[in-house]
């Protein structure tokens, strides 16, 4: 309990927030690295996933990629780019995180586009749409929920993993925790853990709301899913 008080004291000291390399600085750095990584993953993962799903090719490749990516320790990925000529620092961290974020975006996009009802695709072809139009105007809107799930998974993973960068001299909020461990200051360790965990949970919530906002048609927040499904069941048997 004493350490929890230390953590509260640490978090209540404005100096710890505003000083150079304080919580605010690290937070900005953390978000910049994570945001950039997610953006890169989106730019690569969504088009590739959409094309593979649209053409129905490469399913095995996508599954294999997402399985292998789970086995590679994220710490390893962060380290490997740092020992290449890129050198350690924000660039290596961003590249590693982007590589790490591509599989969830890619596989969810692929599943989303694969999962579009074949009847819908045929109907839109019959209406005279070419491949491009089918992809953008029929499949994309229907795949948006799955794509957004992938984006959310990737973004939360990236925000969580960016904390590990501190272990290999990259930037970000993890520095509060690693520095705390090095100085045997468990108050700071707890304070850092609280900030980091809070940021991760906030990211999850913010992106859940975002995916609700960009989903066309029947919208549902993740936590209202059960109720919606039950209502559909109640009205469907006619």
């Amino acid at each position: 309990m004493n350490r929890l008080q230390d953590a509260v004291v640490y978090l209540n000291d404005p100096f710890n927030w505003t000083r150079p390399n304080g919580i605010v600085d690290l937070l900005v750095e953390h978000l910049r690295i994570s945001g950039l990584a997610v953006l890169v993953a989106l730019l690569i993962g969504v088009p590739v996933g959409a094309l593979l799903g649209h053409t129905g090719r490469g399913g095995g490749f996508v599954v294999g990629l997402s399985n292998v990516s789970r086995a590679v320790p994220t710490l390893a990925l962060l380290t490997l780019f740092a020992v290449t000529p890129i050198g350690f620092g924000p660039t290596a961290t961003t590249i590693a995180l982007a590589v790490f974020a591509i599989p969830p975006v890619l596989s969810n996009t692929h599943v989303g586009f694969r999962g579009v009802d074949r009847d819908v695709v045929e109907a839109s072809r019959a209406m005279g749409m070419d491949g491009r139009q089918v992809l953008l105007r029929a499949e994309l809107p229907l795949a948006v929920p799955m794509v957004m799930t992938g984006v959310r998974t990737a973004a939360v993973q990236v925000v969580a993993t960016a904390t590990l960068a501190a272990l290999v001299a990259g930037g970000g909020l993890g520095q509060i925790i690693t520095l705390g461990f090095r100085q045997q200051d468990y108050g700071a360790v707890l304070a850092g853990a609280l900030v980091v965990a809070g940021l991760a949970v906030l990211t999850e919530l913010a992106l859940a709301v975002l995916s609700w906002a960009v989903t066309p048609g029947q919208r549902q927040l993740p936590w209202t899913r059960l109720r919606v499904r039950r209502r559909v069941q109640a009205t469907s048997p006619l």
Partner: protein
Amino acid sequence: MLAVDAAPNPWFDPSYVTREWDTIVDLAGEHVRLTVGAVVLGALIALPLALLARRSRWLAGPVLGLSTLIYTIPSLAMFAFIAPATGLTTTTVLVGLVLYSLVILVRNFLAGLRSVPPDVREAAQGMGYGPVRLFWQVELPLALPSFIAGLRVATVSTVALVTVGVIVGHGGLGQLITGGFAANFYRAEIVTGVVGCVLLALIGDLLLAGAERVLTPWSRRVAA
């Protein structure tokens, strides 16, 4: 740019592996112990939770919601939360790993239990099976593929997560990764740690896949 780039610093160096073999085996042993301990403990806790969650609809929501929340928390922060209570020991790493494996296991166990067709359960009950026998002889075999799928995912992701344990000095093969990083970016040591982790994950996955084949002979016969 860096001075180390001038010195020979190969990615793969067999002589490093032979020279440091004892250390590598020690760390791999710690890695395996932590992984197996976490997955076994996680399974022992997840099974009753999944059974409870299936029984009552109002419990399922909170159980799944809480486990999702746990998974959102970054691993470094998780170990940092636990360390002040348990110190710089393997317990810290183990508790964190169990919490993460629970998330995966409860979900898969619950999905497995729910996949048992209700008429099969009713038929067994009609034949006079009590709850214990119903579970062991009917539900468990039918839910086994889903159980093992959960164990496989949990094992693979736990192997990767163990490395973060370096923050409290017990990261198994992760020690090689940060060790090589600290020793002037010694690539051979880092690569050994990474390859070791991936190999361990692969072996664990294969062992569990084999166990599934052995334990569910009926599905093999259908496939053939």
